[in-house]
């Protein structure tokens, strides 16, 4: 599990005061909202949302933009305890 490091205040974005947490937003934008079908340039059904959200929510926030807490990965080992 996480160690006792403070999860340093995320220093992303120039407007920290108004920021909704990105992960809360992505929960809603990638799985919520009306899905339209039909005459779209892009049918959302064509997007591999599992892949997108895995990338977005779990795997990475981008190497060029490392989070301050990357050294502190929550290791979900299966043999905890």
């Amino acid at each position, binding site marked *: 599990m*996480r160690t006792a490091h403070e999860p340093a205040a995320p220093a992303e974005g120039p407007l920290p005061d108004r920021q909704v947490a990105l992960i809360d937003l992505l929960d809603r934008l990638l799985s*919520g909202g009306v899905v339209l079908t039909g005459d779209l340039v892009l049918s959302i059904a064509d997007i591999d949302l599992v892949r997108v959200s895995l990338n977005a929510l*779990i795997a990475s926030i981008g190497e060029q933009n490392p989070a301050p807490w990357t050294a502190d990965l929550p290791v979900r080992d299966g043999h905890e*305890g």
Partner: protein
Amino acid sequence: MTEAVTYAYAVARDDDGTLATELSGLSGVADAPVRLVRAGRNDGVVVAVSPVPAPDFREEALHAHLEDMEWLEAIARAHHRVIEAIAAHGTVLPLRLATVYLDEERVRLMLDDSREEFADRLAELAGLEEWGVKIYVEDAPGTEDPAAPSTGADLSPGRAYLSHRKAQRHAREDAYRAAQRVARDVAATARRQAVARAQHRPQQGELARGPGENVVNDAYLVPRPAAHNFRAAVLRTAEEAPGVRVEATGPWAPYSFAASLEAEPAKKVTP
């Protein structure tokens, strides 16, 4: 000028033209202006759209972009900004992120086909707002020092370690049980004050802010007048639950309920 396609954000009502006025000057996805598309037979139901550069929003490019975290965040925040601006004016039916049409005429045709259904859903969502409720099991205290001799010096270092680990494990099990109680209390509160529930996957990974482990990540649809009490009641559920933290976020536009309101009424508060 670059060729443009049409990015669609949401469906809303603009019976008197005030929404159009309020959205003028707002910058949407790709810094584009936000406009309203009206149905052929104008009955007040509109779709908010922006012209966006085709090279970035055609299918292949969009696929690649959506896996670029920086790009995804920019588009997500812009989308949200427009949804919030509409929500400040009235009921909004958000569309899924990255709904892109070839041009506004295609959007108009879609609206012509679906406007009755949209109007019905807008009416159902009127006066309701979404609240997020997340329940966390916090990290057990003392995890950073597993070798600390917890009880008397009469234990060998090995035994002391095992005894300490055992205590930690029990604390964690207690915290999970407490989290289950909190989840039940939240559900009971919701039965009184919310009209629908949607479940999201618990948050994990680097974007999850923690601290602790997110075990419940739900959204509730709450009548606006009840929202204050709902939030307070939800936050109270963790007061006597050591090791458990509850967070409430909102109010949100009804993202988690836009599509599922009539399709999945079964989602309403299940144990």
